[in-house]
């Protein structure tokens, strides 16, 4: 055998060795369960009796008879359209603001960023308290100013806006990303535009936006993917606002109030771990998978940067 072949084989083995933790992880925690999910989506299985092949029964059940599927999909669409948009616009606004602040910029930046770090369960509890219709500070203040006092997490029309408020509070991640992008815009372009006598809005529209548009797109697509995964905040908000938590005997049907906080991941939990319908849960899981992967593909295609070569 030539030394070249030996060297090549040694290099392949070395690569395998370095990749091995992930190769195992990928097979055991991704590939195998994904195939298994596909398998169970065709079976009737409750976790105790032997799985029975049922063809597409689970699929027709989820799409036509399971009362939570379409509300969850509708909520997801609402959250994508309203929550993601609000977060990107607000994140860009706060990012712009922080680049303009000259005095105490570090303090402002830290204050704006901190809420992003609040653990989701803690942040959600805090907001359910702040927005509770009876004694919450927000409604106390609104009432004091003679403004209407919505039911927030207890009112099906207001629960998603309340979740949006919570998401805007934690906008720190986007703020930091936009801030870095804004500081990267070449100064000369602003100076040239200023010499041309443009207004601040024109400079934003024709200099800033084109320069940061890849980051805006990144923020939108990752926002959509995060919305697909949106689980803890709506579930905890619904649970806490409904008051049905604590005792192990208590059964909480997610979505309170009136299915308005249902999201797809909650359906997997509801079907699999509350109704013991593993087949149906796997159908929802696959829908979730298809949606998440579609947007991930969009992210990778539009932003070749994610896949840039290593050299």
């Amino acid at each position, binding site marked *: 055998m030539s030394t070249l072949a030996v060297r090549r084989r040694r290099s392949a083995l070395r690569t395998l060795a*370095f990749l091995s933790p992930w190769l195992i992880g990928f097979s055991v*925690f991704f590939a195998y369960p994904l195939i298994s999910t596909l398998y169970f989506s065709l079976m009737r299985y409750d976790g105790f009796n032997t799985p029975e092949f049922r063809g597409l029964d689970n699929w027709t059940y989820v799409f036509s008879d399971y009362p939570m599927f379409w509300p969850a999909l509708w909520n997801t669409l609402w959250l994508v359209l309203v929550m993601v948009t609000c977060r990107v616009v607000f994140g860009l606004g706060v990012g712009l603001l922080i680049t303009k602040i000259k005095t105490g910029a570090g303090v402002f930046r830290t204050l704006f960023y901190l809420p992003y770090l609040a653990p989701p369960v*803690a942040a959600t509890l805090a907001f359910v308290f702040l927005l509770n219709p009876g004694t919450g500070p927000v409604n106390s203040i609104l009432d004091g100013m003679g403004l209407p006092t919505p039911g927030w997490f207890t009112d099906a029309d207001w629960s998603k806006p309340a979740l949006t408020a919570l998401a805007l509070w934690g906008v720190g991640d986007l703020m930091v990303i936009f801030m870095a992008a804004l500081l990267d815009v070449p100064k000369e372009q602003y100076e040239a535009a200023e010499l041309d006598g443009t207004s601040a809005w024109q400079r934003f529209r024709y200099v800033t936006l084109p320069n940061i548009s890849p980051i805006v797109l990144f923020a939108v697509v990752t926002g959509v993917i995060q919305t697909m995964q949106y689980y803890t905040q709506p579930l905890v908000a619904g649970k*806490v606002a409904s008051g049905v*938590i604590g005792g192990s005997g208590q059964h909480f049907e997610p979505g309170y109030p009136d299915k308005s906080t249902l999201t797809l991941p909650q359906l997997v939990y509801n079907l699999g771990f509350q109704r013991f319908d593993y087949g149906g849960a796997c159908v929802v899981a696959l829908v*979730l998978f298809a949606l998440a992967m579609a947007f991930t593909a969009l992210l990778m295609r539009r932003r070749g940067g994610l896949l840039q070569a290593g050299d």
Partner: protein
Amino acid sequence: MTQVLERPVELGPVGEAVRIARRRALLEWIAVHALGVAAALFFTLPFVFVVLTSLMSDEQALTRDLVPDTWQWDNYRRVLDTPGFLTWWRNTLLYAGLGTVLTVVSSLPVAYALAKFRFRGRNLSLMLVIAMMMLPPQVVIIPMYLFWAKQLDLSGTLWPLIIPMAFGDAFSIFLLRQFLLTIPNEYLDAARVDGCGELRTMLRVVVPMAKPGIAAVALFQFFYAWNDYFGPQIYASENPGAWTLSYGLESFKGAHHTDWNLTMAATVLVMAPVILVFFFAQKAFVEGVTLTGVKG
């Protein structure tokens, strides 16, 4: 604003133009900082109200008052004395601490190979890492639960959440790779010329240079475990002895229905460590957030 900007060019005296420009700068300073203060109120008032309520007496917490009449610091001791609360702390530290160490150790070589080795299937591997990163954990939870609970009999513990971290975490691999790309290959080549194998090159040359990236990954992973709600809900809900803070906090509200003061004190106790860690490692963390979006 536009007229103010355009007119000085036509106006004769230079002093006039400078004066107008100065006044305009001052007005802008005031406007920007006023907006900044308003935004700061939006971001901090929730914390302030939570802390204030956590210090109210039981009776006052039921009212619409915003500021405590008497400051009940004792509330925090009552929360810490709640059965289970310290166990949840310990479990959370185990999950977050051990999980973080395992993640860094197992993800680093993978990230190194993806960033610095040339091999067939590298782009495919990277795409699969990204796919895993974007995969909601609920997608594979049914088979994973059956695997851990039925085959390995580990439900009621946190091990189903900790063990997988010894096999690389997609997000950490991705983030580390992005960071390692910024290290020039010349350093690695120099080490190789000196006779270092790849493992030694990684440990001796790359790790010291990649410290900020490793710190960012460790922080993200620590926060992930600290914040995780779904994982403990699936695997640990049946056994309160294995609950984490994030999971236990919600049941705390259940057990103290209307005692918003105690619930808010518990909330502060869950938030505080994360915020403390952040203050000690602010730079690494913000760098990491930027890396996820911009360096891509």
